C-alpha cells in the first residue's frame, strides 16, 4: 500500500527528519508514536483517517484536564461496581481494576461486514469439523487433517465420540482474537472455543464511554451492543435438550467456578443481565441422569447450562477426580440428552494452536470456500524442516504452547533472553507437538489516553460470536490494549487493558 511504503521511509530518516514528523502532531498528540505498524487513527503523520476525523477534532479542542477527570471518574466507578480482578497472591484478596482506556477504537461499517462474514464462515466450518471428528471422522480419513494431530490433542475427549449435541452446535459462544497486520488487513490469531471471557468489559466500557463522549455517539452513529445478554439467552434457549420437559421455557443456568475465579464479575454480570440463576457446582446435583438445582423451595430441574468451568473440572466422576467445582454425574446426564452444556465438551481440540494451522483447509473442505479471514503464518514443529527453521530463528519468533491461553507458556523472541530461548529450544525438541511458532507480528496501534496525553499502543480485537439457530455477532467487541509502551502482549493477566470498540452503522 502506498501509505505503508511512505511510512517505511519515514522510519529510516535521520533524527532531524524524525523530529519534523513529530512536529506534525499537535498537542495532545505531541508524543504520539507513529510508524512501524498499522496505525488505526492516522494514515500519515498528523493526518487522521476519515472515520477518526471527529474524534481527532474533539481531542484537539478538549481542555486537557477534562479527559483526566473523566478517566478518574471511570476508574472510581469501576472500583465501586467491583469490576475488578482478584490478585491471587494477596491473602486479603486485594482487587485491582481492569484498566480501561477512554479513547474508542473505531471500525467502519464496510470493514465490519467483512469481519462478520469471515467469522461466520470460520465458526460454521469449525462446528462442522467438531461434529465430524466426534462422529465419522471423514476429514481425517481424507487426510486433510492428520489423524495423530487430533488424537494427540490434550483437549480431545474420547467420551464425546458418537454423542449428538442439540442442533449439532458444539461452539455456541466464541470470542475470536483478531489482529491487524501492517498492510491493514485483519487476520485471526486464535479461536477461543472453550470458555472465552471479556464480554462484560465490552459492555462496561460502552457504558462509560456513553457518559464521556455523548456527542460523538450522535455524530458517528455507533451500533449498539447492549442487547448482548438477550442474544446470549436466546441462543442458549435454542439449545434445549431433546428430553426437556419444558421445551418452550427451558431453565437456563450459568455455572461458575465461584467467587475466586478472576472472571467472577463477568459471570455475575451475565447471569443478572440474562435473569438466570448463577450456580456453583455445589448447587447442582444429578439424580437418575437428571440435573437439579438446590433451591429454597426444593429441587428444580435444569435444562441448559452455560458453563464457565473448563472440561477438566466439570464432572469428577468422568474427568478430574480432584475437582470440587463440578457436579458428579453431570456427563452421564449430558450423554443421556437430559441437559445441554454450552459450549459442548471437547471443543478445545478445534482451538488447539497446531490444529489452527489447518483451519483454512478445514474451511475449504467443509464449505468449499476460500477463507475470508486469513490465518497468521504458523510453523508446525512436528515437521522437521519447519522445526529446523524455527530453531535457527528463535529470536524472531513467537513460540506458543498449543493448549494454553491467556498469554501463558509463551516465548516472545525479540524480547527474550538467551536463557529463555535455550529453555524453549529444549522443550520444543523434547515435545514438538506441544508447540507452534509464528513470526513476531507487528499488531496495529491505536491512540490511548495515558499520562495526560495521547499515545499509541498496540491493540487486538476480540469480537463475540453466538451460534444457536444461526450465527450472529453483536457489532462490537473487546479491543485489548498492551498498555506498556512497545509491548505486544495484550492479555489482562500480563499488564493489558481494554477500550471500547465502535462499529459504525454506515
Amino acid at each position, binding site marked *: 500500500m502506498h501509505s505503508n511504503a511512505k511510512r517505511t521511509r519515514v522510519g529510516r530518516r535521520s533524527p532531524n527528519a524524525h523530529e519534523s514528523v513529530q512536529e506534525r502532531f499537535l498537542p495532545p498528540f505531541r508524543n504520539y508514536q507513529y510508524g512501524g505498524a498499522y496505525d488505526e487513527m492516522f494514515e500519515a503523520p498528523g493526518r487522521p483517517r476519515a472515520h477518526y476525523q471527529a474524534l481527532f477534532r474533539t481531542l484537539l479542542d478538549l481542555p486537557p484536564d477534562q479527559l483526566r477527570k473523566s478517566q478518574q471518574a471511570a476508574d472510581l466507578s469501576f*472500583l*465501586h*461496581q*467491583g469490576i475488578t480482578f482478584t490478585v491471587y497472591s494477596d491473602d486479603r484478596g486485594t482487587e485491582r481494576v481492569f484498566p480501561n482506556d477512554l479513547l474508542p477504537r473505531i471500525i467502519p461499517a464496510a470493514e465490519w461486514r467483512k469481519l462478520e462474514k469471515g467469522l461466520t464462515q470460520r465458526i460454521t466450518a469449525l462446528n462442522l469439523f467438531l461434529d465430524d471428528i466426534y462422529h465419522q471422522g471423514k476429514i481425517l480419513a481424507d487426510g486433510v487433517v492428520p489423524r495423530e494431530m487430533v488424537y494427540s490433542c490434550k483437549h480431545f475427549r474420547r467420551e464425546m465420540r458418537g454423542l449428538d449435541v442439540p442442533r449439532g452446535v458444539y461452539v455456541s459462544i466464541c470470542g475470536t482474537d483478531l489482529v491487524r497486520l501492517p498492510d491493514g488487513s485483519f487476520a485471526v490469531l486464535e479461536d477461543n472455543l472453550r470458555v472465552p471471557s471479556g464480554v462484560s468489559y465490552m459492555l462496561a466500557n460502552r457504558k462509560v464511554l456513553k457518559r464521556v463522549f455523548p456527542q460523538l455517539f450522535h455524530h458517528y452513529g455507533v451500533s449498539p451492543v447492549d442487547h448482548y445478554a438477550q442474544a446470549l439467552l436466546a441462543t442458549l434457549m435454542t439449545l434445549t435438550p431433546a428430553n426437556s420437559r419444558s421445551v418452550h*421455557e427451558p*431453565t437456563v443456568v450459568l455455572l461458575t467456578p*465461584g*467467587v475466586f475465579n478472576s472472571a467472577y464479575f463477568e459471570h*455475575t*454480570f451475565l*447471569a*443478572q443481565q440474562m*435473569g438466570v*440463576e*448463577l*450456580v*456453583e457446582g*455445589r*448447587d447442582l*446435583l444429578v*439424580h437418575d441422569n437428571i440435573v*437439579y*438445582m*438446590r*433451591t*429454597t*423451595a*426444593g*429441587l*428444580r*430441574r435444569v435444562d441448559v447450562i452455560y458453563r464457565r468451568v473448563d472440561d477438566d473440572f466439570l464432572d469428577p466422576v468422568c474427568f478430574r477426580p480432584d475437582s470440587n467445582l463440578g457436579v458428579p454425574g453431570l456427563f452421564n446426564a449430558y450423554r443421556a440428552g437430559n441437559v445441554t452444556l454450552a459450549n459442548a465438551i471437547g471443543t478445545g481440540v478445534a482451538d488447539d494452536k497446531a490444529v489452527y494451522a489447518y483451519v483454512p483447509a478445514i474451511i475449504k473442505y467443509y464449505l468449499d470456500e476460500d477463507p475470508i479471514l486469513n490465518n497468521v503464518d504458523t510453523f508446525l514443529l512436528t515437521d522437521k524442516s519447519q522445526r529446523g527453521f524455527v530453531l535457527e530463528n528463535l529470536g524472531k519468533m513467537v513460540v506458543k504452547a498449543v493448549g494454553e491461553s491467556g498469554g501463558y507458556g509463551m516465548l516472545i523472541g525479540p524480547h527474550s533472553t538467551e536463557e529463555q530461548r535455550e529453555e524453549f529450544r529444549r522443550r520444543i525438541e523434547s515435545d514438538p507437538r506441544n508447540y507452534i511458532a509464528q513470526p513476531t507480528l507487528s499488531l496495529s496501534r491505536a491512540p490511548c489516553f495515558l499520562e495526560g496525553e495521547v499515545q499509541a499502543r498496540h491493540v487486538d480485537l476480540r469480537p463475540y460470536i453466538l451460534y444457536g439457530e444461526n450465527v450472529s455477532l453483536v457489532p462490537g467487541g473487546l479491543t485489548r490494549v498492551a498498555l506498556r509502551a512497545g509491548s505486544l502482549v495484550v492479555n489482562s493477566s500480563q499488564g493489558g487493558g481494554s477500550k471500547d470498540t465502535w462499529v459504525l452503522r454506515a
Partner: protein
Amino acid sequence: MNPRNQTTMLSRVADSLYWMSRYLERAEHTARLIDVDLQLQLDQFEPGTERSLRLLAASHSYATPEGEGSATLSRTLTFDRTNPSSIVSCLASARENLRQVREQCSSEMWEQLNRLYLKTVDTEPSDSLNVHRYYWSVQEGAHLFQGITDTTMLHGQGWHYIQLGRYVERTDALATAIGTHFSFLPHYLNQTIEPEEYLEWVGLLKSCSAFEAYCKTYTAELRPMRVAEFVLLNAELPHSVLFAIDRVHEALQALAQLTDRRPDEAIRIMGRLRATLAYSHIEEILANGATNYMDSIRSQCAQVHAAIQQIYFDYPVESAMIA
C-alpha cells in the same frame, strides 16, 4: 419469564443473603455501642470507664486481657481482622457474602456496600474527632444500605432472607446488650434510679437508639421499669426486642408462603416468644433476673437460626426429591 422463575432461589444464595444481612447488622450494632460508650466516657470518672469497657467486651464474648486500655480495646473491636466480630471483619464478611450473590441484589445495593467497605476498612481515624465520625459513618452507611435495599430490591424471597438475617441478629445483639447492662445495674427493681447509675441507664437507651424516643414517650424522667419495658416490649421502637421478633416472625410467614416449605419449628419458637413478650408485664419478665431472661431469648434465637438453616439452606436431598 414464567412466575415460577421469580420465586426460584438457590439455597446457597438465600444463605449468603441471610449472612450478609447478619454481618452488616452486627457491624452497625458494634459501631453504635462503641460510639455511645466513647461519648459516655467523657462524662465519667475512672471507675465508670473501667465498667463500660467490660460491658463492651462482654457483649462481644471477648475476654478482656488485664490492663488493656480503652483505646486498644475499641481498636480490637473495630479493626482487628483476627477478631471475626470486629467491625472491619463483619463488613468484609458482609461484602464477601453479597459479592457471591451480587446478581441477586440491585446494583445500587452492591455499590453501596462496596463503597462502605472501601471507605471504612483501611482508614483508622487519627484523632478523637475523627473517631466519632468514623463510627457514625459505619452506622450511616448501614442505614443507607437498608434504605437502598428497601427501595430498589424486589420485596420477594431474597428481601425476606435479608430481613430475617437482620432481625435475628438484632434480637440476639439486643438481648446481649440489655443483659450486660442489667448486670451492672443491681437496683433495677427500684422505683427510681440511683444517681450514680444515671449514665448507665442513658447508655442502655442510647445503645438501643432509644433515648430520644424514650423522652418523647415518657419525658426525660428515667425510671428503671419504664426503660426496661421500652427496650424490651415497645412494638414501635425499631431497636426493641419485641419489634425485632415481630419482623422475624413476619419474614418466616412470608417465606412459608413463597416457598411452600413451612419453617414450622422456627415459627413455633418465635410465635411463643412473641406471645410471651406481648402479653406479659415487665415485672413478670424480670422476676427471675434480667440476665437469665436475656440468655433464654438468645438461646431461642439460636434454635430459630438452626431451624431456618435446616429447612432452607442445608436440607437432606431425600426430603426434597421431586417425583
